[in-house]
């Protein structure tokens, strides 16, 4: 598991798995799209707009997951002085931002037919919007601070502080009575969703994960190259 | 008292200078010479513990400067290559602020004298922004008298001054060194100031 913290090991591993991951993600995407558009049923309440779910939910999950991993890496980088954590933060933040954006856009597209408006100020939507802004701030910090050492530390601290927002996103639907769907799929007990909808959802989720990994590999590699001068 | 040993400074992985040795002892006047960009300002700032050296060490009264810098500051006046007086305020306000800030034990008469020798006495109620370049610079030298410290670290004190003022600086320097003060200053030419050491960067 050393490749998770060591740049050169990571490079070796990345060369090894990049192509399979890419191919897998393409295949999964093709199957997933096929399922979600043709092979899954309309919802009896929501009609065919339910198909937005197959984009919305995976992207939402990944947005959260990405941030959670960034938090872990920030802790590692700050507490255990593992520079790979800084590299990871810089490389992955834009990916998380894109997932969040997809989640928000698909959510609003879904919200128009369901709730009658693009946007309401309920706790989940608001906290996701804040998540998006946090991602953007991280990206801009990475772009604009000149002193690298300070920049990396500041960003890592910011990621840590911002992680307070994660549980708010996740549990806001349980804590407050909101418009947004409470957890139906990711409940710890038996998910209350029909298997015919579950299958494409799972496939799409894996497709998103694979795409995310592929892009992350590319970005981390460039990030490593740009720091060659002082990474051993 | 201040001893600089084998000092090297890097900035953004570029060596600015290497292995500088110098010492400031009571009564000596050191001139720092060198081309533009050779690192004079950098050296002075490193001596003030503002810039971290990449190698070498600086000692003040036998201890590492890093551990002891507030004591060093207590004995040091630094005048940078830019002026620090507040442009929006009058000369008087600036002088008052300095006097209070540095808890100076200089009395009014001495200040007046100094202003007179610097030929700034007519400008007391003028905003610093409307002084001429050289006058602003001379105003800055008032801090040498107000702070009344032993070690003077001056960055290009002589540029932009007219001959009279340079003559005045010369005397001030000699006076200070005869009172066991020590001076290090950077300059591109030396218009006849007596120096005990010359360092070429």
């Amino acid at each position: 598991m050393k490749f998770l913290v060591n740049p050169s090991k990571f490079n070796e591993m990345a060369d090894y798995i990049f192509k399979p991951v890419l191919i897998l993600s393409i295949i999964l995407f093709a199957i997933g799209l096929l399922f979600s558009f043709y092979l899954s049923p309309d919802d009896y309440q929501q009609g065919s707009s339910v198909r937005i779910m197959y984009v919305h939910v995976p992207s939402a999950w990944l947005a959260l997951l990405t941030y959670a991993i960034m938090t872990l890496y920030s802790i590692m980088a700050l507490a255990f002085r593992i520079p790979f954590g800084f590299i990871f933060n810089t490389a992955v933040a834009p990916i998380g931002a894109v997932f969040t954006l997809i989640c928000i856009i698909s959510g609003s597209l879904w919200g128009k037919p369901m709730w009658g408006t693009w946007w309401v100020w309920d706790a989940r939507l608001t906290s996701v919007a804040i998540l998006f802004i946090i991602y953007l701030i991280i990206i801009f910090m990475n772009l604009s601070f000149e002193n690298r050492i300070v920049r990396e530390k500041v960003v890592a601290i910011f990621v840590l502080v911002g992680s307070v927002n994660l549980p708010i996103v996740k549990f806001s639907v349980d804590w407050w009575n909101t418009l947004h769907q409470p957890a139906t799929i990711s409940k710890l007990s038996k998910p209350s969703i029909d298997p015919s909808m579950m299958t494409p959802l799972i496939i799409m989720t894996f497709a998103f994960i694979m795409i995310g990994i592929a892009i992350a590999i590319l970005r981390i590699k460039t990030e490593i190259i740009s720091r060659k001068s002082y990474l051993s | 008292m201040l001893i600089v040993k084998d000092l090297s400074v890097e900035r953004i992985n570029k060596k600015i200078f290497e292995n500088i040795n110098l010492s400031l002892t009571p009564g000596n006047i050191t001139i720092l010479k060198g081309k533009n960009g050779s690192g004079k300002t950098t050296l002075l700032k490193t001596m003030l513990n503002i810039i971290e050296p990449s190698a070498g060490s600086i000692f003040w009264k036998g201890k590492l400067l890093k551990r002891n810098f507030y004591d060093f500051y207590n004995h040091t006046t630094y005048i940078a290559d830019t002026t620090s007086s507040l442009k929006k305020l009058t000369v008087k306000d600036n002088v008052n602020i300095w006097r209070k800030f540095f808890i100076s034990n200089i009395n009014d008469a001495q200040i007046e004298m100094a202003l007179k020798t610097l030929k700034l006495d007519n400008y007391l109620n003028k905003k610093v922004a409307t002084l001429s370049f050289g006058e602003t610079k001379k105003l800055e030298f008032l801090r040498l008298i107000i702070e009344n410290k032993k070690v003077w670290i001056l960055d290009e004190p002589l540029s932009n001054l007219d001959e009279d003022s340079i003559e005045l600086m010369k005397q001030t320097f000699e006076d200070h060194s005869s009172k066991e003060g020590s001076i290090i200053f950077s300059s591109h030419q030396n218009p006849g100031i007596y120096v005990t050491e010359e360092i070429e960067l």
Partner: protein
Amino acid sequence: MNFLNKIIFFYYREYKLNMSGAQDILTNIIFFFVSIFIFIFSIGPDKQTISIIGVGILWTLLLLSSTLSLRKFYQDDFENGNLIIMHLNGLSFGFIAILKTFSHFIFVQIPFLLSIPIACILLNIANDKLFYLFASFGIGSLILSCLGSISSSMNLMNQRNFLLGSVIIMIFSVPIIIFSVGIINMEESFNSLINILFGILLIVFAINPWASGLCLKLSLENN
């Protein structure tokens, strides 16, 4: 004694500086009142709505106006070398940060606090809430000053993107604002809630000299 004197004269200096730039303070206050007028006019004469959202508006304007003055926080002293002089005069960077934070509080936030009573009249906020407002605003604005100090000292290392600092502060102040606006409407449990706000103040107050001081040191080193 010596040290106390230094502190006093630090503020003498700040006073002189701020008074010579009095138009900046005035601009802030004008901005404050113009914005209140904007709201009153956009809402129309419906007193009910105005008094409901009044406190919220006051808080937002407080926040925005303190971001307004962020640019001045350290920039001038940094550029003309006064930061170095203060440090050489025996004040550690962290301590400079504390002094500056209070100076910001005194010369930027206090004028605001003083204009709150008038704003309350305009916004139809009941008189008996004034005390709660003052208490929570006083603490809140000190928190904002601390956050402002941190972000603007960070900005010294980031000459490119001045607004980023403001955005960061604003994100951090979201919970504070939600919380403080809530406080005023819960008069029974006011005391315990204000203690929490006070706790937040203590935290940022403890972080401030450390974080700002580090940033100041590094930015001077790289200048």
